[in-house]
């Protein structure tokens, strides 16, 4: 059997509700900044939830030619901006690299929701004539983001989008890992983006009773593990990672952030949207991930949970961590950065993987903010990194993501030996 190649992270990019670059994102994370505020993208006054974690002070034309940006839904604009930041950070010489060996594997849970909403609204308001814009479909489809990235740079390796709701970009990272492990590419730009803070997105999630309705205090609404949590807070943005075959990175003298040592996948096979109450699929995904990475539970220093701040999901996930890690679980720095960024849906896996990598880089685990009331259903021995960042030498960091539909994905990173 062929020997699997080692895979490392060499570039990062972020556009998030708490910072529009990697440096700003990290500053937001360690300082416990909340990205939540009243919605500005549309008038939310008739909506049950009137706040979200929006990307702030972002004008696509600062980065993308006006004509090009007009052909892109915001989710694709976000992808272009973060992939550029990650590529620049990686120091990859785009003119010299073998472009047939560079791929783009992206994650998006929904895709161009704003575009879909606008086009369908136009149609509904018309006389029934199908006057759809020729850019409607290409702007909306979830796979256009990696398509656009490849067109910009001429990358001709594997190229597609993974769709598994809130696990989408973790799936993308795992597919990127496996493609490089198997020798199908030397470099893959991976990550995810989402831009669902629209009337359709907010209305749809509200109808599911999935989101917090704490309109009187948006900044404290995302409160994973707190007894008074009442749902997730919708976020938007993008995270991008350049991942690369180890020898390829070493040969060009690249800065290496961490090794991607494994990924796990599983399904709850239980309900369209509710998590399995005992977290059976979540137990399986972490076990699969550890096995895939060749790790023992005691090797893990930190877990960035899915931790969305929903009543059922948070408890089920922590129970699952207890089952997988046993008594050792209390030694792990567990956190949920969604307390700050909100839930970026298909981009969550990417921005949270980046948070894990930066925690290793800086030796600091970002906090789970907004915690004030203990939930009696949660094991008090667990270190949930509450309210303040904690200094911690992190050698191995795990990142969990779970999507509606029961899709679970878990990625694990390790400091380079």
């Amino acid at each position, binding site marked *: 059997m062929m020997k699997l190649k080692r895979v490392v992270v060499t570039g990062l990019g972020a556009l998030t509700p708490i910072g529009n670059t990697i440096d700003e994102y990290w500053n937001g994370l360690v300082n416990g900044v909340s990205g939540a505020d009243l919605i500005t993208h549309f008038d939310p006054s008739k909506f049950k939830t009137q706040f979200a974690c929006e990307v702030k002070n972002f004008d696509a034309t600062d980065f993308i*030619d*006006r004509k090009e940006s007009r052909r892109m839904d915001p989710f694709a604009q976000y992808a272009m901006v973060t992939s550029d930041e990650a590529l620049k950070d990686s120091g990859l010489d785009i003119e010299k690299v073998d472009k047939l060996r560079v791929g783009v594997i992206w994650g998006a849970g929904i895709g161009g929701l704003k575009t879909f909403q606008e086009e369908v609204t136009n149609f509904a308001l018309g006389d029934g004539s199908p*006057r759809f814009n*020729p*850019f409607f479909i*290409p702007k909306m489809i979830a796979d256009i983001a990696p398509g656009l990235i490849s067109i910009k740079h001429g990358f001709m390796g594997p190229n597609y989008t993974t769709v598994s709701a809130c696990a989408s970009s973790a799936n993308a990272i795992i597919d990127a890992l496996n493609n490089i492990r198997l020798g199908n590419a030397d470099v893959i730009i991976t990550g995810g983006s989402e831009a669902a803070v629209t009337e359709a997105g907010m209305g749809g999630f509200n109808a599911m009773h999935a989101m917090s309705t704490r309109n009187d205090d948006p900044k404290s609404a995302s409160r994973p593990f707190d007894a008074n949590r009442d749902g997730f807070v919708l976020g938007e943005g993008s995270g991008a990672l350049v991942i690369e075959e180890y020898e390829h990175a070493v040969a060009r003298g690249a800065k290496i952030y961490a090794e991607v040592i494994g990924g796990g996948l599983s399904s709850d096979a239980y309900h369209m949207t509710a998590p399995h109450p005992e977290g059976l699929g979540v137990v399986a995904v972490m076990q699969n991930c550890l096995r895939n990475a060749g790790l023992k539970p005691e090797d893990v220093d930190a877990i960035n949970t899915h931790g969305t701040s929903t009543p059922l999901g948070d408890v089920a996930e922590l129970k699952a961590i207890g089952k997988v890690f046993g008594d050792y679980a209390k030694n792990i720095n567990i956190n949920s950065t969604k307390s700050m960024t909100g839930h970026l849906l298909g981009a969550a896996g990417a921005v949270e993987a980046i948070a894990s990598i930066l925690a290793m880089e800086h030796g600091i685990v970002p906090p789970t903010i907004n915690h004030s009331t203990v939930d009696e259903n949660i094991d008090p021995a667990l270190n949930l990194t509450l309210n303040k960042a904690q200094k911690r030498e992190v050698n191995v960091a795990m990142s969990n993501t779970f999507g509606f539909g029961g899709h679970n994905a878990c990625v694990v990173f390790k400091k380079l030996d």
Partner: protein
Amino acid sequence: MSDIASRVKAIIVDKLGVDENEVVPEASFTNDLGADSLDTVELIMEFEKEFDIQIPDDQAENIATVGQAVKYIEEAK
């Protein structure tokens, strides 16, 4: 410049992101103004909307320059 010509020009400048000075009657949407197949369809749709006319597909194929667009719209109005 006629009212129609200036409105056509404004649409082209907006949709194709080109400079006003480039939008001359003989300029070809694809060869001179950088439009691709999707842009051309979008332009025709914008003309239809702006001038409240219908441009059938077989006629649209014959509108390749700024001047041809203005002429077609003037005759259709």
